């Protein structure tokens, strides 16, 4: 499978990438980092951008560092680096674990956190992890930079609150060494996306593939805050959700999975 033709330009800096996005505002330009969400879509001709702006080799967009009470992760940091980071493993272990669940080793060498979040697949690992952790997405645009809270980032099926012309520069995650967390991902095949996923840390519970976006299990969170047991709270995990149906699972089965996986995530917090 061969992508449709496009023009390619490698940006010299994040600001250059933003300038290029503005220059190509009428051209259906797309940012390219690892390309592990975009290129498969282009090969299937589900995406046919006319211009690709490559930000994958910009050192400014890579790396992981502590900044006050947060960990700052460059948007073009590959999953393998995130999963192997001593800082992330010690102070945001849910995120390191989530990155290690994406695809397979080859995919984790190429795919990036910014790309996964911008792609916004509701069944993916990192969007659910971001929502559970309550992180912030830092974006750069022609009018400067802004931070988008995780709860405001995912707006629809493969849609985010990124404006045209904005790029994700970094992701900020609260440092929480020692905080108990749980992570459950139900799949039938190795390497696959979650049929349903659940991630829990502190008072927050996030679900994957239970609707058009990753979701908070708010009824379960409320019950937990009011003193319910993990098993009691988990019974409310699917409340208010309208999950899709496909060959893997119908709606009622997904709701069942959400209840079971949230219970397991809460009961197996480490």
């Amino acid at each position, binding site marked *: 499978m061969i992508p449709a033709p496009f*023009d390619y330009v490698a940006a010299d800096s994040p600001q250059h990438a933003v300038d290029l996005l503005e220059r190509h505002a009428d051209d259906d330009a797309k940012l390219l980092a690892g390309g592990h969400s975009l290129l498969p879509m282009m090969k299937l001709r589900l995406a046919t951008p006319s211009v690709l702006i490559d930000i994958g080799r910009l050192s400014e967009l890579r790396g992981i560092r502590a900044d006050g009470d947060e960990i700052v992760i460059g948007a073009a940091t590959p999953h393998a680096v995130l999963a192997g980071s001593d800082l992330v493993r010690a102070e945001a272990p849910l995120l390191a674990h989530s990155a290690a669940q994406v695809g397979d080793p080859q995919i984790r060498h190429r795919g990036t956190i910014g790309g996964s979040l911008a792609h916004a697949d509701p069944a993916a690992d990192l969007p659910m992890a971001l929502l559970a952790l309550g992180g912030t997405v830092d974006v750069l645009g022609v009018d400067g930079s802004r931070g988008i809270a995780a709860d405001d980032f995912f707006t629809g099926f493969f849609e985010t609150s990124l404006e045209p012309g904005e790029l994700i520069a970094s992701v900020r995650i609260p440092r929480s060494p020692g905080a108990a967390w749980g992570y459950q991902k139900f799949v039938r095949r190795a390497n696959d996306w979650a049929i349903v996923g659940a991630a829990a840390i502190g008072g927050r519970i996030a679900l994957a593939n239970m609707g058009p976006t990753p979701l908070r299990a708010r009824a379960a969170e409320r019950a937990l805050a009011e003193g319910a047991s993990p098993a009691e709270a988990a019974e409310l995990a699917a409340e208010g959700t309208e999950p899709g149906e496909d060959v893997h699972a119908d709606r009622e089965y997904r709701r069942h999975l959400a209840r079971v996986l949230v219970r397991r995530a809460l009961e197996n917090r480490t």
Partner: protein
Amino acid sequence: MQVELTVNGKSRSDDVEPRLLLVHYLREVCGLRAANVGCDTTSCGACTVLLNGSSVKSCTVLTVQTAGQEVTTAEGLAADGELHPVQAAFRAEHGLQCGFCTPGMVMAAVGLLSENPHPTETEVREGLEGNFCRCTGYHNIVRAVLAAADAGHIEPAEVRS
């Protein structure tokens, strides 16, 4: 557009279309046909090569993304007529049946051992989860990778990509 990169230790400069996938560049422009096009959907791993020492699926990398970088294919492993330890172990342990997955399997194994020179059997199985053998010859493949690790001579490397 013109792209300059290093393939199996040799500098190259080629005029390529931006949409040319790395696996097609290697097979059709460089004439290196070890990396196979299997599923063509980032699943099967038959097209696995090393990019700056890390395993990647070359069906999901644009050639232009590799500008200035180092690509290694199975053809680049043997030195001075001596099989790479992983290749030798695949032969000794009969880590192949039809052979279609083998170049990708070998490259994934080389990448795995560079990151984890002494893996457990479980780590080998998980480390090769991105490579399918539809002959289902996994037991001998895993045995071969463990034998290569025991034989040593694998240089540890940081995760780079």
